[in-house]
């Protein structure tokens, strides 16, 4: 199921503005990788480059090479929708489709991929909601609007929607930043559970969260506003938080910023 992601020399641009510069890292299958760093350092941009969501914005482009199990994601012959199906994404703010019910939200991706059979959709909805630890809370109201759930439930609904299409990799862009601590804990528990099936890359501002959940951690930083962000250090989470090799990393994780 899960696949290896390899980036080498990835630079992303918004028009003429270079947002990240020459990022290289390898993400092993069935691990959780956390990307940390100050705001504006390009970690979200890098994350969006992995499933080609970066190029959705006008003027955005990337240089360098990104592969998933040795297949080039940015090969001109590759179908961009196939890449996004392979590499799912959970966003910062919960974004269930407002006009759809809980059930419709979960199976939206499957319907987009041409699955029409009711029994298949029902099974997938139940399985995904159970994987997202949401089934018990919503099983009696699957036809209620998805946007009527609490923030934490909505985010788990979005995770269920993402994993319903059976991706290989799940990208999470600050998935807990809009949630309270209890909902955050629920999502973190969920990430441990999903690790058995998916490769997970998570962007987070919460260093305790990175330390709690991830196997490896990448630290991004910028020298000053307007400069591109760089990957300063990438290593085992244990090592980054106990014995970082770079001064900048140490300053950041101990709170001595800059």
């Amino acid at each position, binding site marked *: 199921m899960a696949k290896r992601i390899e980036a080498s020399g990835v630079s992303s641009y918004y028009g003429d503005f270079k947002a990240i510069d020459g990022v290289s890292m390898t993400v092993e299958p069935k691990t959780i990788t956390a990307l940390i760093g100050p705001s504006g350092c390009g970690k979200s941009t890098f994350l969006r480059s992995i499933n080609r969501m970066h190029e959705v914005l006008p003027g955005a482009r990337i240089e360098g090479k990104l592969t998933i199990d040795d297949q080039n994601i940015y090969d001109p012959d590759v179908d961009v929708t*196939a890449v996004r199906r392979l590499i799912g994404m959970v966003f910062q703010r919960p*974004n269930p489709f*407002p006009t759809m019910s809980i059930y419709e939200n979960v199976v*939206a991706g499957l319907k*987009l991929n041409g699955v029409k059979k009711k029994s298949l959709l029902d099974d997938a909805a139940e399985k995904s909601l159970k994987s997202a630890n949401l089934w018990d809370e919503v099983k009696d109201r699957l036809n209620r609007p998805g946007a*009527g759930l609490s923030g934490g439930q909505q985010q788990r609904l979005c995770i269920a929607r993402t994993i319903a299409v059976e991706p290989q990799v799940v990208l999470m862009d600050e998935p807990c930043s809009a949630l309270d601590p209890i909902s955050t804990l629920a999502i973190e528990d969920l990430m441990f559970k999903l690790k058995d099936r998916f490769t997970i890359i998570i962007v987070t501002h919460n260093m305790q969260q990175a330390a709690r959940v991830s196997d490896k951690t990448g630290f991004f930083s910028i020298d000053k506003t307007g400069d591109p962000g760089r990957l300063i250090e990438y290593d085992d989470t244990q090592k980054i938080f106990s014995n970082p090799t770079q001064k900048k990393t140490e300053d950041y994780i101990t709170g001595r910023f800059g």
Partner: protein
Amino acid sequence: MGDNPSRSASTEAGGSGVTARHARPAGDGVSPIPPDDRPDNRPPLGGGGALPTKSRFSMETGFRGLSTAAGVMVLVIIAAIAVFLISKAAPALTANDANFLTTKEWFPNDTPPVFGIAALAFGTVLSSVIALLIAVPIAMGIALFLSHYAPKRLATPLGFIIDLLAAVPSVVFGLWGRDVFSEPVKDFSVWLNKYFSWIPLFGGEGPFGRSILLGSLVLAIMVLPIVTSLSREVFQQTPGMNEEAALALGATKWEMIRTAVLPYGKPGVIASVMLGLGRALGETIALALTLGTTFVISFNLIQSGGNSIAANIANTFGEANETGRGALIASGLVLFAITLVVNMAARAIIYRRREFRDSAA
């Protein structure tokens, strides 16, 4: 104003008649400055004396009164219109020798007067519905192109041109339809009649030209800008994060539009279509100039003929006598009722999924 004591008078509240614990004036308890150091012994701004009573006459009450009056005025105007229409129509309707609702002929100026709304109402609804069937798909296409496909440099001027189309007076559309557009429509009608006359819509012996088809096409052009610009507006308001959610699930652009944009914009699109229908139903001069003015009920679209309530009022009001004018006003009442039913149906559609829309915030 005995029941509205001033602030200074109330500073002593709590100063007497209470237990020793509250012996000092209420305001002084919270003041960090000793009373003697304050000029004039006045209570501090933040917490002196008793709570000030609210004044009875303020901007608040004044504005409330103004807005209430404005709201009431709408009801009064509507009631006045209804009373006017009914009082003028009633004598003509009692004098009518035929059933007003089922009769097709329109001879209100004869003695005895014989007139009915059936053919006119039918023509009004038929021409409007066909106009919308033509205009709405095209308007959706333009709106989606402007909101999601066209580059910004093209979308802005194009949207402006569409809005400009709405500013063309309807009499111009009517004259253009009658003098210019009728020729190609006539040729098209002859062609339709030649090859598709087995479909009742395109049958008949002729003459062709000033037909429901011509009137509907002109109407379609007239409602196009309303439906387009309102739909574009709601499509543009689709939250970006919902569009991204669809794209991240592996949707193509069209699939993203179907998953995120169209469902989100649906109530707005329905509202825009109903506005367009309202304009089509009430359109007067363009139809008076392009329709063939016959009082028949027929689904034949290409044969010269057709009529509508508003066009009939414009065409015959000049030579109408007392009863004739009453009859025309009665027909206006029917148009009013049709528009009301259409609007209520639209509201019902929009409100049916309100729960989904409201929770979307």
